[in-house]
């Protein structure tokens, strides 16, 4: 097998019990896929067995999503062989791949927002009789699948638009399950999920693999791969650099160096020894929006990083957006450097020096068809302009600096954002606010989909900004990130702040306990 050739050293043998059990269902040999100016896949080998969870690891832009799109029939490979259940295949379109038993959950959710949950789940293969869609039948089958996914509470006839991000993820999983799939591909499914949702996802994956279904799982979180994965294939610059490593035994340093070609101490930057924290920058008092959050008070001082931990739906993103003026507060006040901001006015917030990297990069932050540099400078282009005339070369230079700082790949800032990999798009969103004279950064899930190396860079950049006196308010589903990066942590649950403490006084378990709506914690100090 070609894949083994590239594996070197460190006791690598495909010795995992579950992997041994299943026969090889999918084998890719020397798959090449080029886009104009980019060799996204440059000779990929991959071998997947029935009943295993095969993890794909690789930096942002390594080619993971492109690879799975080749499998899903979205892209056609330029050359190479795909063997699926013993037959050489080339899928003409996604429907063909689905018919032959490959279902895919894409990195960027591909749901039709204005269709119902059931319609989305069965999109393209609605159960019919005499040409009419059997709505009742479709709804009951959807209900059944949702039950299997542990989300019986989602009504099949609810519009997808009305669901939170995690709910949409469940619908897209339901779509995968609505086919009789033998291979389910999941491209960073956990990026939008909270901790308990990830547990639920893993339970489902275990159920699937127990039925002999193969799963290809992509994630940048190594601890997830340790937990759910059987074998790991590592991609770097479109090539397989290691195949079929045992997911649990392979040392982290090994995985990271195969991914990046170097070693990364992906730890958080040190907190400054002497306190650089300055005056009060942001002061929020009694902020309330009914149904979202109530009576939230917090403060951020210049040079301070404040983290908000909480589940999806705990109101943390809504608080951030309300502070920024993207939502209008019903009660309470937001003050920047002592001056009250007009509620519901993003313009006022930006003028006062705020910047926000929103949670959903595609719908809330990016102009997909526009070049990288115009996306990076979307909030600052008028500052570089003279007499209303934009200064494209200055903008490109500034964007280029950001691209270098955040290890954007490819580095050409004139490329359309649409052609970037998910993690690189995320860097564009965050990079936007690293320009200009932002005094307070509101970051909502800034590292969603960003690889370990770039993540460390991003932490460094955030810490440096803080050292220069910028205040940072950070929301993240990843508790270690909040604890590692922030100076002070707020824990939110069901729209209320349940705990505020210096990061040093909290540990992961304590935060997780606080975050979960456990009855044990009902009496927790507010």
């Amino acid at each position, binding site marked *: 097998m070609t894949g083994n050739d590239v594996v070197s050293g460190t006791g690598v043998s495909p010795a995992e019990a579950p992997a041994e059990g299943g026969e090889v269902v999918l084998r890719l040999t020397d798959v090449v896929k080029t886009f*104009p*100016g980019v060799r996204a896949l440059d000779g990929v080998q991959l071998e997947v067995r029935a009943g295993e969870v095969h993890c794909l690891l690789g930096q942002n832009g390594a080619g993971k999503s492109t690879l799975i799109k080749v499998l899903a029939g*979205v892209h056609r*490979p330029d050359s190479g062989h795909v063997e699926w259940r013993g037959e050489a295949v080339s899928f003409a379109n996604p429907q063909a791949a689905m018919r032959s038993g490959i279902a895919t959950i894409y990195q960027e959710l591909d749901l039709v927002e204005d269709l119902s949950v059931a319609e989305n789940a069965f999109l393209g293969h609605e159960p019919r009789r005499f040409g009419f869609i059997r709505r009742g039948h479709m709804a009951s089958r959807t209900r059944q699948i949702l039950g299997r996914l542990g989300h019986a509470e989602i009504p099949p006839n609810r519009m997808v638009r009305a669901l939170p991000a995690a709910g949409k993820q469940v619908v897209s999983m339901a779509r995968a399950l609505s086919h009789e799939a033998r291979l389910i591909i999941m491209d960073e499914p956990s990026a939008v999920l909270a901790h308990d949702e990830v547990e639920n996802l893993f339970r489902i994956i275990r159920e699937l693999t127990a039925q002999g279904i193969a799963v290809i799982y992509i994630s940048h979180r190594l601890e997830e791969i340790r937990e759910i994965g059987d074998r790991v294939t590592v991609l770097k610059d479109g090539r397989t650099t290691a195949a079929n490593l045992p997911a649990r035994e392979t040392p982290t340093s090994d995985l990271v160096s195969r991914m990046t070609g170097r070693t990364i101490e992906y730890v958080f930057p040190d907190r400054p020894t002497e306190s650089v924290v300055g005056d009060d920058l942001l002061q929020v008092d009694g902020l309330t929006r009914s149904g979202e959050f109530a009576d939230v008070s917090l403060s951020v001082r210049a040079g301070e990083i404040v983290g908000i931990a909480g589940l999806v739906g705990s109101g943390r993103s809504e608080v951030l957006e309300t502070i920024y003026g993207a939502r209008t507060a019903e009660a309470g006040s937001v003050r920047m450097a002592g001056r009250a901001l007009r509620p519901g006015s993003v313009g006022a917030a930006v003028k006062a020096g705020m910047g926000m990297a929103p949670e959903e990069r595609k719908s809330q932050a*990016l*102009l997909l*068809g526009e070049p990288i540099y115009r996306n990076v400078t979307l909030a600052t282009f008028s500052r570089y302009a003279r007499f209303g005339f934009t200064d494209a070369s200055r903008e490109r230079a500034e964007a280029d600096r950001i691209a270098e700082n955040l290890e954007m790949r490819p580095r050409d800032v004139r*490329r*359309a954002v649409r052609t970037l990999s998910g993690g690189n798009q995320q860097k564009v969103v965050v990079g936007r606010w690293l320009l200009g004279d932002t005094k307070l950064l509101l970051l909502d899930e800034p590292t969603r989909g960003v690889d370990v190396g770039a993540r460390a860079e991003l932490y460094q950049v955030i810490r440096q900004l803080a050292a220069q006196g910028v205040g940072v308010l950070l929301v993240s589903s990843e508790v270690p990130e909040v604890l590692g990066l922030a100076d002070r942590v707020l824990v939110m649950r069901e729209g209320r702040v349940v705990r505020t403490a210096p990061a040093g006084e909290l540990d992961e378990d304590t935060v997780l306990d606080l975050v979960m709506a456990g009855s044990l914690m009902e009496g927790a100090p507010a």
Partner: protein
Amino acid sequence: MTDSPPTTKLPAQSPPVDPAETEAVGGRAAAGVGRLSWWHGDGGEGAKRNLALIGVLLALFVIGAATRSDLYSNPDWVWANMLSILKLASVVGVVTVGMTFVIIGGGIDLSVGAIVALAGVWCTTVATQSFGAGGMIFTAIIVGIAVGLVNGTLIAYGRLVPFIATLAMLVAARGLAAEISQKQTQISQNSTINGIASTDLLGIPLLVYILAAVVAAGWVLLNRTTFGRRTVAVGGNPEAARLAGINVRLHTLLLYALSGLCCGIAAIMLTAQATSAQAAMANLYELDAIAAVIIGGTLLSGGRGTIVGSLLGVIIFATITNLFAINGLSTEAQNMVKGGIIVAAVLIQQIQFGSLSQFFRRNRLTTS
């Protein structure tokens, strides 16, 4: 290729036919291939669409030459005919520039024809004409901007759907124009105004200069200014624009005002051409302008488009009208052909993006 069974053998070197890739065309042109870098201003896709439109124009020229070889054998006549085509295109052309901004900004303006009529009628009332040419021009432009501001306010702050708001304005503005003019044709007595349509500079009609100036200003505004950048952002992703601190509502308002301004300018040009104004003037200009914008490759959903494409769209329509006129054919047949052209132009663009661009790309990959 398309109707192949779901599973087929992979040819050793299968051609990259890939629908998802078509989206990436802009990215490729923008990918910094040095010799193509002049495309950046207008966007790589736009430049290629425009080349296709120029091809259509050439084809129309050839058809003209084939059907009326007697006329086309005379170079002087050909030159004069080209100028008359441009003159024909000038009024709608000015309206189309404003329409392009509105559509790139994610809206639509159905009231442009009505605004032209209202501005034309208002500037030719006896009272206005008493202020002379300056007063008439001022009035037409102010009326245009004012109506645009009303549109913009309804849409940006009243949250009306652009289609509905401007449809209502279409009806209302024509009604007001009929009211002001008492349904009479108002003759323009002002020789300066009338002279705008009959003056030539260096052998080229003044109307064509006005069109050129408006197009040039529109191009600079769209591609080189913060206003243009905001327009693309607001049309491409209004939520992203808002969260980046852009005042989306104010900008939307300004876009409709800009369209109104263009209508005001067009009203003067059209009044000069007819030496009169009436409530029914500029009938169905909204359709001509929207069709030209679409043919020009601007996305109806907003966020992307070019001024040059829109201009070419207008010129193509004017050329067709001219072609029918010199062949003595009916306007009914002409409208049918125009409808066909709209469909054909869109189809050509799709074909161009599907297979043709793949073809070029493959050739470039192998040569580079």
